[in-house]
């Protein structure tokens, strides 16, 4: 049985899709058969992050409506053999998703895969609720700013009320993933600190991803940043994958960097 993990946030633009691509890749590179489902019908992005946008023929809606088989719609990642993508439809809207359809697709996938990552659309409407409905675990992608924290808080409330697990008296396991963390700006008081965020959300932390230009570069190139193994963001995502798998590892990139002479002189972030 596959573990279903929803990647959600409420707020848009915080790094859900980037996170999904990197975590999915990370899990697959460790040998877990992983499929990522893009629930952002109408605004699909996950294919771009993986650089497979030209290979999309059928999508989630086609499968739900019986116009294509799962086998036809799944796209195998060209870098990680155990990673597959079920893309969203770009031409339809979220009303085309049905609870029964999503359930059938997940049931079929759960037989063949170890992990199913559901990349949720922003917001708390139908699309987001369907993405989280069957989840076993949730990764709450949050930026260190007040609006993002509040939206995540709202989503946690939904996870505790509007999921199958909650309706059966259970609980979706929650993980907090803080993205775009900039220790320098925290020190300067421009950003909420990790402690501030955890104080409000009170959710176990699965990772802190430093703000980094390599993420933007990777997104534009269609290569998940986790592949760039020496980049800080990549290391942080690898650690997040480890923690997701139950391993313990110390937090990195949460203390302000001591700037050396050269980086002070020549500046620039990695």
């Amino acid at each position, binding site marked *: 049985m596959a573990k279903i993990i929803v990647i959600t946030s409420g707020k848009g633009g915080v790094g859900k899709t980037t996170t999904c691509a990197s975590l999915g890749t990370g899990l697959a590179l460790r040998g877990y058969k992983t499929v990522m489902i893009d629930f952002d019908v109408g605004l699909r992005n996950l294919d771009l992050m993986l650089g497979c946008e030209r290979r999309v023929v059928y999508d989630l809606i086609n499968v739900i409506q019986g116009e294509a088989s799962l086998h036809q719609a799944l796209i195998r990642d060209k870098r990680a053999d155990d990673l597959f993508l079920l893309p969203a439809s770009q031409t339809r809207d979220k009303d085309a998703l049905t609870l029964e359809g999503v359930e059938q697709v997940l049931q079929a996938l759960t037989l063949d895969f170890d992990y199913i990552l559901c990349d949720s659309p922003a917001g708390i409407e139908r699309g987001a609720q369907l993405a989280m409905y069957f989840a076993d675990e949730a990764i709450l992608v949050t930026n260190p700013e*007040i609006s993002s924290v*509040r*939206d995540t*808080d*709202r989503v*946690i*409330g*939904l996870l*505790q009320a509007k999921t199958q697990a909650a309706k059966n008296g259970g609980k979706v396991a929650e993980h907090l993933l803080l993205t775009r963390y900039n220790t320098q700006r925290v020190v300067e008081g421009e950003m909420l600190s990790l402690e501030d965020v955890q*104080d*409000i959300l*009170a959710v176990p932390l699965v990772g802190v991803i430093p703000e980094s230009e390599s993420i933007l570069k990777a997104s534009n190139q269609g290569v998940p940043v986790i592949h760039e193994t020496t980049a800080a963001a990549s290391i942080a995502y690898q650690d997040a994958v480890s923690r997701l798998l139950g391993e313990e590892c110390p937090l990195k990139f949460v203390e302000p960097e001591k700037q050396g002479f050269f980086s002070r002189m020549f500046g620039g972030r990695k």
Partner: protein
Amino acid sequence: MADAAQPRLNLVTLPLKLRGTSLPATLLQPMTAQVPVLIKALEKRLQEGSALLGKAPLVIELGHLQEAFDLAGFQSECERLNIRLLAVRSSDPQQQTLAKQLGLMALNTQERPANAANQEELARTQVHEGTVRSGQQIIQDKGDLVILGGVNPGAEVLASGQIHIYGPLRGRALAGIHGDRQARIFTLQLAAELVAIAGSYQTNFNGDSQAGEGAVTIWLEKERLLYRQLTPAG
């Protein structure tokens, strides 16, 4: 010019109004049927200046007395003491007839049914486990509310009684929502968007910077919300 005593238009279409009401009366429950003993006790109460006996009309309840009661004798003694005996409450038809003959009202013993102890009318305390998240609303319509966790920004907790928050209050807390002015709010840390007690509210109620650190209680005094720290800060 129209005569003031003769209005040109008769605007009063209703000569009277009838309204159901309940007015105060004193209920006397004799523990004995011996009228002299009762009268003596009443005289003593009058001497002590019992306001209840002096002003409000008296209703005597006879339902639970086993022995015969001399109602006529009691009535005349009441007249002598200037106590206005108004009615008799009894389920016994004989006593009801007697009361009517004596010019008193005869009331049935049926009261409005009292709520049994196990009925939900009774105030209860609701305990909510965990943090109240943005967008969530916890309401305790009758009784107190205890939150084992924080109340986050955008969350709302309401109770007709007190609200206890074992965590930081960062959202909204409304106590005494049915008008209980004695209701209080307790929280381990005050950084609220809004607090209200019995309809008196204040937004951005953070106290001063020192109070924001420790546990506080908030109460209503002369239409103002006041707070006090429960533990020293730090």
